[in-house]
């Protein structure tokens, strides 16, 4: 028996306040696939987990590695297996996702086009990369729009924001944009755009929250505590919070009237963001119910690591250039999961590491489970692993172990979705979760005439697309003949309900992901 609920699923709570509810079992029809009241489909979620690294290392073929100082030839370390379809060989980076192999498709053989004969900005093809790897690859990868300079930006809206705009207003926030790596770590430099993967329009970033604690408070701080003894205090706190924000917002007109035109925009934007916070605080007091629960408070954020000298360094310390991105990613994945369960948003991105990440990989490779056991952690930052920063530990296996670490975070969120019942199945049936990394392993974008494979390559790229939203049919390895990565994103967007078939300048999807 379905309760009488309006579109926003709002009802009167015991305390007489208006409360919003997540999807409850009682609201589903017998088949558990649609909202009974509206007859609409269950929410379809769209997520991206991003890794700021490539698939292989400089001047090392996909079967060549140097581990513990020893050069070796091994198959199975590059992410892409030799077989297509189901039952493919699980490669090193996919080991921790092996149990999910029927829940995602591995899509390989993708490339971003570029002009082999000209490095001029005007000669970049549609959806293509400017011939300078750092910066040149980000716009086409994220937005399907060509880059014309070595700038870390997107020249159009990114896939997640297209989906967010499509669903705008249906949930408390349109998208949840998070980043685990809080600092660039390279002494003397700051991110300069490498810390963004979400853009609402050309050159308009959606800034990520890099503090797990603040992200937690922002998402769940407004929830009514279960303990009835604390509810009066909560009500008081929420009213206090609103009154503070209202007070500040009340000053808007007076302040903007006295400043110049430029500041009317600058400060106006700031006031707009405060107003949005006020809306989030006051719009619908959230209650935990059913599977929607307030996650454990993550506590203070892990300490931000200090900068490093840059590049691989024998002097790299275990605490330099690392801010416990492992824990930060886990907390953020927990937040995404519960934000989806509670239907606070249906779109999320988690940038585990920045583009061209200089996160120290020693802490994540010391003692790591490796097919060839490492006699010590890799002494390099993530970017330099691809550039042979540790002369004893380099090539394919070194790169793949770092990639696997990133994939683990994606798999962790996949597991959580799969473990959450929804309707007749699980949340994974109504979600699409893409794992995307920065680059492939092939010809050097800057100088494609170079015969040796490079980490700075937009060729031979691969991505994972997990979940069954929108008719996705996961479970195999799809070797494309040079599909654009944005085509896979179009497929993912379609799975989340996007009716178009373009992203930026790129048209078409990868039809095989729908079976």
């Amino acid at each position, binding site marked *: 028996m379905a309760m009488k609920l309006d579109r926003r699923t709002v009802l009167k709570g015991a305390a007489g306040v208006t409360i919003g509810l997540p999807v409850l079992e009682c609201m589903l029809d017998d088949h558990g696939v649609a909202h009974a009241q509206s007859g609409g489909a269950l929410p379809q979620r769209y997520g991206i987990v991003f890794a700021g690294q490539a698939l292989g290392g400089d001047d090392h073929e996909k079967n060549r590695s140097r581990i513990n100082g020893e050069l070796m030839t091994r198959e199975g370390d590059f992410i892409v297996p030799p077989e297509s379809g189901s039952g493919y060989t699980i490669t090193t980076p996919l080991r921790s996702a092996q149990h999910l192999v029927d829940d995602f498709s591995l899509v390989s053989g993708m490339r971003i086009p570029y002009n082999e004969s000209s*490095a001029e900005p005007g000669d970049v093809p549609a959806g293509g990369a400017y011939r*300078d790897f*750092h*910066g040149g690859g980000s716009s086409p990868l994220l937005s399907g729009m060509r880059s014309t*300079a*070595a*700038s*870390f930006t997107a020249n159009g809206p990114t896939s997640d924001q297209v989906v967010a705009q499509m669903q705008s207003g249906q949930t408390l926030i349109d998208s949840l944009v998070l980043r685990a790596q*809080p600092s*660039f770590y390279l*002494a*003397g*430099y*700051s*991110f*300069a*755009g490498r810390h963004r993967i979400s853009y609402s329009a*050309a*050159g*308009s970033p959606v*800034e990520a929250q890099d*503090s797990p604690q*603040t992200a937690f*408070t*922002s998402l769940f701080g407004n929830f009514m505590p279960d303990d009835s003894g604390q509810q*009066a*205090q909560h009500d*008081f706190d929420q*009213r*206090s919070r609103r009154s*503070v*924000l209202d*007070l*500040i917002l009340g*000053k808007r007109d007076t*302040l903007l009237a006295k*400043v*110049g*035109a*430029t*500041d009317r925009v*600058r400060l106006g*934007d*700031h006031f707009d*963001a*405060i107003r949005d*916070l006020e809306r989030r605080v006051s719009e619908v007091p959230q209650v935990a119910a059913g599977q929607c629960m307030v996650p454990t408070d993550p506590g203070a954020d892990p300490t931000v690591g200090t*900068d490093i*000298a*840059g590049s691989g*360094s024998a002097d790299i*310390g275990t605490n330099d250039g690392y801010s416990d991105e492992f824990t930060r990613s886990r907390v953020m994945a927990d937040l995404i999961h519960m934000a989806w369960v509670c239907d606070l948003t249906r779109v999320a991105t988690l940038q585990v590491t920045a583009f*061209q990440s200089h996160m120290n990989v020693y802490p994540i490779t010391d003692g790591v489970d490796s097919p060839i056991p490492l006699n010590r952690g890799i002494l390099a930052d993530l*970017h330099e692993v691809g*550039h042979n920063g540790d002369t004893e530990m380099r090539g394919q296996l070194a790169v793949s172990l770092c990639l696997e670490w990133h994939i683990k975070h994606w798999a962790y969120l996949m597991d959580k979705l799969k473990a959450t019942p929804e309707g007749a199945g699980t949340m994974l049936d109504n979600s699409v979760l893409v794992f995307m990394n920065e680059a492939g392993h092939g010809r050097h974008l*800057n100088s494609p*005439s*170079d015969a040796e494979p490079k*980490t*700075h390559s937009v060729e031979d790229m691969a991505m994972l697309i997990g979940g069954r939203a929108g008719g996705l049919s996961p479970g195999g390895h799809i070797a494309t003949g040079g599909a654009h990565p944005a085509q896979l994103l179009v497929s993912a967007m379609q799975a989340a309900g996007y009716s178009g078939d373009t992203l930026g300048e790129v048209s078409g999807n990868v039809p095989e992901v729908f079976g």
Partner: protein
Amino acid sequence: MLAFALACGGDIGQSGGPDGDSPASDPGSNDVGDGDATGDGAGDGDGDGTIDSSDDPDAPYVASDSVARRLTRAELDNALRDLLGDTARAATTLLPEDPFSPYDNDYTGQAASGALIDSFSSLADDVAARIVSDPDLLSGMMPCTPSGPGDSACFRQLVEQLTQRAFRRPMETSELDVYMALLDFATEDNPDVDNDFDTAVELLLRAVIMDPEFLYRVEAGEPTDDDRIFQLNDYEIATRMSFLLWGTIPDDALWADAEAGRLTDAEGRRSVLTRMREDPRALEQLRRFHAMWLGYRVIPHSPELTAAFNRETGALIDRSVSEGSYLDLFTSDETFIDDTLAAHYDLPAPGTETWVSYGDSGRAGLLSHGSFLSAFGKFTDTSPTQRGILIRTRLLCQEIPPPPPDVMADQPPGDDDALCKYDRYEQHRSSPSCNGCHGQMDPIGFGLENYDLAGRFREHDDGLPDCTIEGQGEVPPYGSFSGPAELAQLLIDSGELERCVTSQFFSFAVGRELKANEEQAVDALTEDFVGAGTAFGELLEAYVSSEAFGLRKEPEL
């Protein structure tokens, strides 16, 4: 390697960044990548095809473009310390990093966002909770003792004191009234909530900390006869002075100067400046400026070594900006060290931390310090290219064009066959296409090669006794040198250094790269600076007492 692409591989970076050696011509430059990928060709970048007069080098300079600048994390922490006595430096923990290029106060990269507002909310909650839960902090901030939860007179006194100092301007009565609503929460009859006067204080603190008037330096000013030029009032000028000289909000004495109308008078600012420079925060602020300018704000060493470097460099900066010629910063024949750093540098142990003569070590001034020599390493070692760019762009203020895109800058230069570093850079020298640019950078770095990434002297490449370091360098076209002492003299003899110092300080002061017509102001300031025997105090005075300092220009949209 035969490929042309690798010809100057190695030490030239890409994209303005980390790889290095940078394109954007400046190590640490961040002007790549923030949204201007399309390149709008001619014009002033705002797409309307016009040229702002500020971008016209010949347009007479009257005042600098200025907009509401958001406080940096460091400035916010300073302001919270000085406003509330809170020394937790919570902004640095809770807010995202400020981008820097090289100064962290560049307002052109500042934009509001939902994530940022959430972070400010976290900050406000954190600070307010800390203050009201700490009796010492709370009583230190209160101007009165409340007689009870509803003591509106006392609350009003607090509101006035706090908002006035936080917003850096006198408050009108009607503006104060607004905050009295917060006191209602303290007196709300609610048996389930433990509310009292402090509850209202906590809400007030949050309301102040999250207010854009606290978070931004809002300048309005009064219109003048000149189009788009506004005369700032005394309080706005006080704020400019305190953030420039102290990196924080005005104190009571500066407030009194503003109240007395002493700051709108350009000459009147001189005496105020003199007093402000006696405050320890003035030296701290100049230390920060130097650390950002010269790229050693964060360096990859242990906290102990880093702290020792900072004391060494800080002592020399303090002295150079306070007495005699500022050029002593580069030529000083002694340095402030303890036994540990003396051993590090292979200098005589002084027993206690004090000034130690460099003798004939070939060292002089800041260019010999471990702090400076730690900046911009690459490939686990010093980078002659990076050091060359650092000297060229930050101390001579000259631009180096970005490398062509087909340069592979992420690999150390040369092939693996060359044992010694100098030989690995042979490609940079022998290929005309490389040497055109690398010839402007690498020879500078090679003149410092005897000094490793921590500033220690070395005879040969690290771990390679057969690779003797010659340590001979050149700064084309100014001449040859070997080591920091000779380099410093060469830079001084070039005649470019003083103007570059002025230019860097100006950029730090206005919070962005210079507009074209601001070069006129830099010329005039340099003349004053040099005319006064390069006394740094004169540079500060000339800047602060200029007419332009009391004016703002509304940028063309």
